[in-house]
């Protein structure tokens, strides 16, 4: 036993000195973002090459990302210098495990984002890093089938359904595409687009009569949706292959279509419902775990990520937009120009109804999403009765809200204490 502990002691000593040396050479940037190989390559070569210190950029799936981080936090010795992740990734962590970055002197231009980054405490636990949103895109071949009098930049859900129906009738194939695949971001469509547009809420109005109407409309749209959508996760692929002509997805999941064939596609705002044009941002942040081996180097890297030039380089690399005030240059890639214009039109539209990311759910974020995905699968795929499904799922949603005590976020009306499901 003593021999074993001696060996273990020597081994860990060697390992510690090794990691200490490695840390001096490179800051490990452990990220869930910019995962596609081209984006990680661009992050390394164009964004982080100018950091003034060696940075080892390693993008990961959420599972290994969190497991490795937890292992370092538990063992109290770390190699990860800087964390990159979505708001939801950080919200699922314990606030004690992240270093307070309030005195770093950098923050986003949006107070909403800065408040989200405090994760319910009074300290900045991550720094907003970059943002994106979800938009619509269409093949230009679909434009002639737009319903009469419809403005593509101010569509309503009814017009969208009619448009998809026209295309369906003309081509004989359902050409609307929806990212309902295993890795698709369908839940965000319901939380940030469909529900706010029809019910002016997400949690409070989950099982309201307006919600029933919303699901009925979505069922109508599904009639003209490519049934293979349950396998689609990145709509750029179906745009390029022609399997879908009109699609909804994350801006960075449409980028390749615009960059490969900029003249063939248009980007436009999400449609509006009776309660306005609901839409939702995507927010990524950078943070430092308490086990970071070289705190000074990590803080320097976080500061560097927020510099205006870095933010523009990041935009080119990842199609995520800056969170600081910065003038965008004219020579941006086609995907960035198209998505930027669509997002700007969406936020500037007179009926805009911007929502926020789910907040305060902690590690229950996945279960919250599950409620919406389950409702979709039961209502749209299994064609169960809408009222019955909503009343059933409502209980699960209420339980999550009560357990986490999360207050309402926009567009739901503010609440005292946990957001109620009405």
């Amino acid at each position: 036993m003593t021999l074993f502990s001696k060996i273990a002691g020597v081994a860990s000593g060697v390992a510690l000195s090794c990691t200490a040396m490695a840390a001096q050479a490179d800051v490990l940037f452990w990220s869930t973002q910019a995962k596609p190989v081209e984006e990680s390559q661009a992050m390394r070569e164009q964004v982080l090459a100018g950091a003034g210190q060696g940075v080892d950029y390693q993008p990961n799936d959420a599972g290994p990302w969190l497991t490795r981080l937890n292992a370092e936090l538990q063992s109290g010795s770390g190699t990860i210098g800087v964390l990159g992740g979505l708001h939801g990734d950080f919200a699922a962590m314990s606030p004690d495990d992240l270093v307070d970055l309030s005195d770093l002197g950098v923050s986003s231009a949006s107070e909403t984002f800065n408040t989200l980054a405090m994760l319910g405490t009074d300290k900045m636990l991550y720094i907003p890093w970059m943002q994106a949103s979800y938009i619509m895109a269409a093949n230009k071949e679909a434009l002639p089938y737009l319903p009469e009098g419809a403005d593509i930049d101010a569509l309503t859900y009814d017009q969208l359904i009619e448009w998809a129906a026209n295309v369906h009738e003309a081509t004989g194939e359902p050409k609307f595409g929806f990212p309902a695949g295993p890795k698709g971001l369908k839940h965000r469509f319901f939380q940030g687009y469909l529900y706010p547009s029809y019910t002016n809420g997400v949690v409070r109005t989950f099982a309201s009569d307006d919600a029933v109407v919303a699901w009925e409309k979505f069922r109508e749209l599904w009639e003209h949706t490519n049934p293979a959508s349950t396998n689609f996760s990145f709509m750029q692929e179906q745009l390029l292959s022609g399997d879908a002509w009109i699609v909804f997805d994350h801006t960075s999941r449409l980028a390749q279509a615009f960059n490969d064939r900029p003249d063939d596609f248009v980007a436009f705002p999400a449609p509006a419902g009776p309660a306005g044009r609901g839409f939702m941002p995507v927010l990524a942040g950078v943070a430092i775990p308490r086990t970071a081996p070289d705190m000074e180097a990590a803080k320097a890297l976080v500061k560097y990520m927020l510099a205006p030039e870095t933010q523009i380089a990041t935009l080119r690399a990842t199609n995520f937009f800056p969170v600081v005030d910065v003038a965008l240059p004219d020579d941006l890639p086609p995907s960035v120009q198209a998505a930027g214009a669509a997002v700007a039109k969406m936020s500037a539209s007179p009926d805009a109804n911007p929502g926020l990311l789910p907040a305060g759910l902690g590690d229950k974020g996945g279960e919250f999403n599950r409620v919406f995905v389950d409702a979709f699968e039961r209502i749209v795929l299994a064609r169960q009765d809408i009222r019955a499904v909503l009343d059933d799922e409502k209980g699960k949603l209420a339980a999550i809200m009560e357990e986490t005590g999360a207050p309402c976020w926009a567009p739901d009306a503010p609440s005292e204490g946990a957001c109620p499901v009405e």
Partner: protein
Amino acid sequence: MTDAVASAPGADTRKSARFLYVSAVVFLCAWVLVPIYFLLINTLSSPETVTSFPKPFLPEFDMGSLTFFAGFAGILTALKNSVVVAGMTMVMSIVIGAPAGYALSRFEFRGKGLFRLLILLTRAFPLPLLALPLAVLFIRTGLDDTAFGLAIVHTTLAIPFAVLITFSLFSGIPIELEEAAWTLGCTRLTAFTKVVLPLILPGIAASAIFAFVISWNEVFAAAVLTIENRTLTAFLLQNLDTSPLHLKFAGGFILVVPALIFIFAVRKYLFAMWGIANR
């Protein structure tokens, strides 16, 4: 006359049996080769061709996708790590697994049945469940981020296969052969090395291939337990599912080729097992 009558249906049966046999062989070959062939074509196609339909049957030798990976930082180191880890896994799982298989087949001991059951249990726990405590332990003992540490984990995954394959191999070799060797002056060890080992070499090769492929394909443990010394699978596979289609194909090709080369290299031993050696 009676001969002719009897032989005609016999020839027919033989003919249709032969037809069935050939078409089964063709079908099985196509089952394996067609996907690999399409992988190759798409790897060597430009992004436009990859997303177009129908697919061409001849590659157009556009090296764009492969050139991208050639310039991808760290890919060669990752390939080297993968080979090192898979090699260590192979050796360790045979060195540990084969004696266990021999013992199971030749000796009677208490708890033998339980042992055979328990050995399968290492596969009963999903790695994402084990990864966190393993990573904590590895960080504390200094095994973290080493090829050896990862090889230990992969060996644990590969051992059940090594034990069960070698167990059935040893059982297939009559003990009389060994006994004959003992009477002719061999010790237990030399009888094993001179008589049994040459006979089971193909089986060893088969379990080595299993070990190699298990280690080569494993992502989760590799992604959590290594940082600087990532394996190719951990390095690429996580990023490929969100990459554009043409890079998915090229990346998939890069992941498949080394494993194929390895299997071709050891195929001689594998075929020997099925009695068609040296043909």
